[in-house]
């Protein structure tokens, strides 16, 4: 039955997350201004917080409400800050890929590590089929030999290992692309530098270089049989993870945008501007009307993201919905954070407040995990019943 009231247990979890988020937010500015520093494993307040805020038991993994709850929790965490956490999450995007496409043994062996995912290359941007990092099997030693460069690797510095996209045969396009598990410290695997960015500065985004990097044969994600599968085990596996990661990245941005809205609402109240949901254009102040519009965009985007997660929880296909969620949120967070700055004026661009930071941070939403343009391509193909070849 269509319903939008969280369960009591979820509400408790959200409440706890909000309190934690407010603690983290105290450190947000510091790690933005000090890009080179890495946010700590856990904050000074953590012990006391955990003592005073008992964990709220999550629903079982099988529980279909799990993804929706996780989605909303993600928003709340990012509402606090993009990067800083009481306990830093151990998982990276690669962990999602592992659980989606990894073999049982692989999940056993790599599951507890923080796994980054390396897709983008200097020359390929949002078009994964152009991956040129190569993987060649050395039959004698039973090793894969990896060569290539990767950029925009999220949590690339912190990660213990990486899920690397490489191609066995460039001419095969998507068909040739597989994912490989590569541990840090493996000879030939360099982590040159942390990128300097507009936003999410505390977050580590790294560039990797692989030079004749050798890894054991069994590090092919999904195992040998995926090699056979043309078009495309590795790729489909990752696409599958994308169905969850697209709404997740949407949720991250929406958390930041929600923070911007809450801040703006408070400031308007302080300035004595009333937000009246019954008033029309002739009796409502311009600032309030603008705010309501931004709020409606956020609400729409939030629900669309929860819907994509709900479908996943129901085990229903959500490829279109995931792109709708990501595409919508990408535009939404740009409009919302910038609209808040317009409403508040000079205050909005002062680094004495976090609004300008949220604006910079959430600008990534419409870019990574497939730009807004890519999401529109995916949606349009679905609507028009076109293949990748028909429309690109």
């Amino acid at each position, binding site marked *: *039955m*269509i*319903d*939008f*009231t*969280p*369960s009591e247990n*979820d509400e408790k979890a959200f409440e706890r997350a909000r309190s934690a988020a407010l603690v983290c937010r105290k450190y947000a500015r510091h790690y933005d201004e000090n890009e080179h520093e890495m946010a700590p494993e856990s904050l000074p307040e953590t012990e006391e917080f955990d003592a005073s805020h008992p964990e709220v038991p999550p629903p079982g993994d099988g529980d279909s*409400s799990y993804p*929706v709850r996780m989605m*909303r929790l993600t928003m709340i965490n990012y509402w606090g800050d993009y990067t800083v956490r009481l306990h830093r999450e151990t998982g990276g995007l690669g962990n999602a890929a592992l659980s989606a496409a990894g073999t049982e043994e692989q999940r056993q062996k790599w599951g507890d590590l923080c796994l980054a995912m390396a897709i983008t290359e200097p020359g390929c941007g949002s078009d994964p089929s152009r991956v040129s990092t190569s993987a060649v099997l050395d039959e004698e030693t039973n090793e894969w030999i990896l060569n290539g460069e990767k950029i925009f690797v999220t949590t690339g510095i912190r990660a213990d290992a990486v899920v690397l996209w490489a191609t066995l045969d460039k001419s095969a396009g998507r068909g040739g692309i597989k994912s490989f598990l590569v541990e840090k410290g493996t000879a030939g695997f360099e982590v040159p530098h942390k990128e300097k960015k507009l936003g999410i500065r505390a977050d580590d985004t790294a560039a990797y270089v692989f030079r004749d990097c050798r890894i054991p044969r069994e590090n092919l994600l999904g195992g040998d049989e995926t090699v056979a599968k043309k078009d495309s085990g590795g790729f489909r596996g990752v696409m599958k993870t994308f169905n969850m990661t697209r709404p997740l990245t949407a949720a991250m941005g929406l958390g930041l945008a929600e923070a911007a809205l809450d801040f703006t609402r408070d400031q308007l109240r302080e300035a004595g501007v009333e937000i009246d*949901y*019954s*008033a*029309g*254009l*002739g*009796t409502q102040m311009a600032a309030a009307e603008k705010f*309501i*519009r931004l*709020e*409606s*965009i956020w*609400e*729409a*985007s939030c*629900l*669309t993201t*929860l*819907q994509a997660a*709900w*479908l996943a929880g*129901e085990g229903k296909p959500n490829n*279109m*919905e995931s792109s*709708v969620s990501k*595409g*919508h949120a990408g535009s939404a967070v740009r409009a919302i954070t910038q609209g808040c700055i317009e409403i508040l004026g000079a205050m909005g661009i002062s680094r004495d407040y976090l609004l300008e930071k949220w604006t910079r941070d959430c600008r990534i939403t419409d870019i990574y995990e497939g730009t807004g*343009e890519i*999401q*529109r*391509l995916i*949606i*349009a193909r679905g*609507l*028009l019943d*076109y293949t990748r070849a*028909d*429309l690109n």
Partner: protein
Amino acid sequence: MISFGMTEEQELVRDTMREFARDELRPHGRECDENSSIPDELLQSVWDLGLTSTQIPAAYGGGDEPRSMVTNAILLEELAHGDPALALAVVAPSQFANAILDQGTEAQKKKYLPLFCTERFHAASLAIVEPGPLSEPLAPRTVAEAKDDGWVLSGSKSFVVLGDRASHFLVVARTEDGVGAFILDRDAEGLTISAPELNMGLKGVSTARLDLERVAVASEDRLGGEAGCDVGAIVNGSRVAQCALLLGLSRAVLEYCIPYSKDRVAFDEPISKKQSIAFRLAEMHMECEAMRNLVWRAASCLEQGRDATREARLARTYVNEKSVWVADNGIQVLGGHGFIREHPVEMWFRHARTLSVVEGAAAL
């Protein structure tokens, strides 16, 4: 628990209404618009489905079926997907009936609800919109003065749906201490009904202007009696209902544009292969999905009996803007064909532009 899943009954409603709208409404849309009228038989044929009566308790002669605002929103989306103007007309009686049902006194329910449980189509209308710029439902210029024996109403109303055939009107007016709704007989002394008004869209739906010159209303004809009623709740319901109609309309535009753009060739390939067209279709779809969620959320809020002022306003703000955006871009996708009346898109655009600026035109 948060869920986007329809009940089996809701899926059934969706499917039957979609089929009905496709076969019974869509074919008549253009004709009704060009003739600025809807044949009685058409209204009657929908009346026979019992959309209004089934949800009225048996005590008042109704079908006594449970009423779900979410289900009704789904129903309205599908009817509007067939034709927004016809959809508006066929559900018009519910505006009045639901207001009585939700906020009427026992006496008012006994008196008025049976009217909607008859064989024949019966119309009665809400009167919220007022002539002139910047009309606001909760800040009416129409005044209700308290008289020892009742009320005296003075002012004007506009865009009163089916006002030409309505037996009664529920008129929103300002009182000493706020806003109230008053039940008027169409023959009430001092009430002048001028119909039909001429509008940009929804031409098939006749709307009337009411002029009230010191119209006397007995105290028992104030909705809710002594206690009065929550006009805001009526407005919220109608806002969400209109959003549901605009959603159905938007989907109709998108689904018309998709095959058109695949057939239409320019520069040696279907225009659907141009990113400028394909991306617009994608955005139309994104907006339809987003609109539906806002509608469902506000509707479920009403269904649970909570104050939906914020939710209804957010839905209205978003859906009004986006549905018109979708229709306007539907015209652009069709190019010259979007501008001529051989295709329905220009009509849907006029419907959207019209429905998005009025209030109290539908109910959940």
